[in-house]
């Protein structure tokens, strides 16, 4: 039964026409999603502390305000909405279409459960990116201020949903969801998860390598050539260490049966009505934006 939880008819991402994709994700989930479905019965089916049926925030998003529903939404849904927005905005360059979508994206911020520090750390570079694109287009572009504004707003409108999808999703949930909902290949997804665990270790090793060089009497002392040489030495040592760590981890994973054969899923990614609603709203906002822009006469397609 475990594999029965995997989606059977999924695979909307590769669908040829955007129209069809929207229709498919809009459709009712056809009984293939276990979490919250009526047939998904016994509590023994799931880890006691990782799922919630009662709307209570689960422990990973614990501590978040109740209104922060975005982190609890299905990652695949968020990703689909972001992909939809990207696909829908690439062909248009006017500021109105993108502006409406961007406004909708910004309206989601209060529900993302991001604290101020995180918001600034993520938003700062984004705003800077938009501003610089706008500036460059304004100064060097040939199409005037409206087109420059369009370029900036369009970039932000495309980037924001993807960024939100990424930062509000737990990596494990994301992998589960990609594998089970979108039929992504399983082993690479798990491998990426395992590698993510090692990232902090990498930083720690880099720091140690620097200290070890100081212990050997090596420091740059303000000399850029020496700094570059030290950097190269550290990079090589880190590479050797990471390869070794990677081999050890691969061995441990193989020893736990990762090498081959069919897998089952301990966690079921739980698609709920609100996930369908999220994707549908993304499509609706996008359609609405195009319609409004066309109605006010600003709609402008991408031309080469």
């Amino acid at each position, binding site marked *: 039964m475990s594999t029965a939880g995997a989606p059977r008819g999924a695979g909307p991402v590769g669908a040829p026409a955007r129209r069809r994709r929207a229709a498919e994700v809009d459709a009712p989930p056809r009984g293939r999603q276990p979490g919250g479905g009526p047939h998904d019965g016994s509590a023994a089916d799931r880890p006691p502390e990782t799922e919630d049926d009662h709307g209570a925030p689960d422990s990973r998003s614990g501590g978040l305000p109740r209104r922060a529903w975005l982190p609890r939404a299905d990652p695949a849904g968020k990703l689909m909405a972001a992909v939809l927005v990207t696909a829908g905005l690439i062909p248009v360059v006017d500021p109105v279409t993108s502006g409406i979508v961007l406004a909708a994206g910004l309206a989601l911020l209060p529900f993302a459960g991001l604290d101020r520090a995180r918001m600034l*750390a993520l938003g700062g570079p984004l705003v800077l990116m938009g501003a610089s694109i706008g500036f460059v287009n304004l100064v060097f572009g040939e199409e005037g201020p409206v087109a420059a504004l369009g370029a900036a707003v369009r970039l932000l409108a495309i980037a924001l949903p993807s960024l939100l999808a990424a930062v509000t999703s737990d990596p494990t949930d994301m992998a589960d969801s990609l594998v089970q909902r979108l039929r992504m290949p399983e082993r690479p997804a798990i491998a990426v998860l395992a590698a993510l665990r090692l990232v902090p270790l990498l930083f720690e090793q880099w720091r140690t390598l620097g200290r070890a060089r100081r*212990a050997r009497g090596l420091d740059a002392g303000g000399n850029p050539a020496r700094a570059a040489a030290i950097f190269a030495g550290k990079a090589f040592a880190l590479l050797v*260490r990471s390869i070794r760590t990677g081999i050890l981890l691969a061995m441990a*994973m*193989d020893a736990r*049966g990762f090498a081959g*054969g069919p897998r089952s899923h301990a966690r079921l990614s739980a698609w709920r009505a609100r996930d369908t609603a999220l994707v549908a709203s993304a499509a609706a906002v996008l359609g609405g934006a195009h319609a409004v822009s066309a109605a006010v006469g600003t709609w402008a397609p991408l031309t080469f």
Partner: protein
Amino acid sequence: MSAGRGGARVALAGWGWRHSGRSGWSLRGVDLVVEPGERVLLLGASGAGKSTLLHAMAGLTGDSGAVSGDEEGRLLVDGGPAGAARGSVALVSQDPETQLVMARSGDDVAFGPENLGVERAEIWARVRSALEEVGFGYGLDRPTAALSGGEKQRLVLAGALAMRPRLLLLDEPTANLDRGGAERVRRVLGHLLRSAEATMVLVEHRVAEAVGGASAGEAGEAVAALVDRVVVVEPGGGVIADGAPSAVFADQGAALAAQGVWVPGREPRPRVRPTARPGPAVIEAADCTARAPGGAGPLGAPGAEVLHGVDAAVHAGVATALTGPNGAGKSTLLGLLAGLDAPRGGTVVPRGRLAETSTRPLASWPARRLARHVGTVFQHAEDQFVTGRVRDELAFAPRRAGLGPRATQRRVDELLGRLRLTGLAEVHPFTLSGGEKRRLSVATALSSGASHAPDVLLLDEPTFGQDTRTWADLVELLAELRSDGRAVVAATHDPVLLDRFADVEVGLKGGYAVAPAARTRAGAALAAGERSAGSDGADGGSGGDRGSRPGGPGTADDRTSETGGGRGGAPCRSRSERSGRRRG
């Protein structure tokens, strides 16, 4: 029992393994049969291919396996090639960091069963019973990154048990853990070894510590209580001893010890001259606070404070041991004393002979000057290698110090000989064995010293994973340095090193220095000397409170006892202790 379904039978006939790219065989001509349900302890000198043998039994050396090389002979698990029956063999290795896969504890235990295609309901039942079995005290959602080393290793063990293996392979499961963490893992192992049906093969380097025997005899008995059989393999060869633990240790103990194997009751006894007279302080840390490095990037959380106001002094001619559980701040304090990191609060300054060079805080010394006077040996020797050849590695510092080619050559040859590396002068440091790397890293620290060694040598877990020969070499060398009047500081949890070498033990716990203890007469003398010298302000102005403390300088006779020496003029005390006294 979670390791259920009975035990597997392992049969090796004329089995051998050669890692790809190597000319020599790791093991050759291994004939061994392990009957279902047997508990076997696998011993051998370091580099004897014990881990390789376990990896082969785990099916990692096959055509599609993670370990590549040439195989000869036959290795059968339950009559089939190893790894053929997926999930029937589970392996637990040394370092939990490279064995955990998932971000959440429960998910990690579930990873093995998932790979075996176990049904979901059954997976979580297994996860819960495995976690219970290893005494895991947190919920399933506990982030694996938030666990201590010992907790991580118990989680790894749970992950192995959840696969319900018929053969459980344990490759030094407690080697990377501190005393407390190792103790709990050991208890779980003891329980498993007694009660589980699975066949078990255990590799342990330091058997006596691994079974937790306080004395040699006890350790021997503890081994006998845990395992049915001891099998000893030889580097490049096959099985050289096989039998009941007591018989193997009694008949072959001496021969094994001579090969470098740690045999309970036959720990190495290096020729160590006891410390004659402790010298003056050369480095003093006062009221040091330090933080762990924070998370990466702008979103990284700041690191937690790992030292909260620690005073410490390093004395010439004295061996100081920093002890304490993982994460207690041993390595952090070592880094401060070594001048590699600057403390967040407080000062680390040179004193005595070292202050003649410069009186500035150690952390602000330029690297070249620092290396000349203060040498540091890192836990992972590889981190310190900066050239591509053993010879260049040793010539690096003398050359930079402006020594001529001939003098450099002499220094290098002397060091090569002193650390038994002469035959390896032309190879790449990364290709050395663990023991050779360790000896080379010590040699590099010595090579940068002004007069054949730095004034202070600090080492992070120097004896970790070493066989008895390298162990004895190291300790004898360090003792020589000590006799020359150099200061030696080692962060360690090696009880034999503490026992045979350390003069003073500085215990760290939770970021405070607690219960520093004199371990030798010299250490006690140092404590006594410090205490009476306390009023001359050698200890950053805290001497006054010390003198006024009830039972102060007058009660000198209690200092030779361990706690007395510690409480007294210990070279290291925590701030809390001091301020407590102040209030009193």
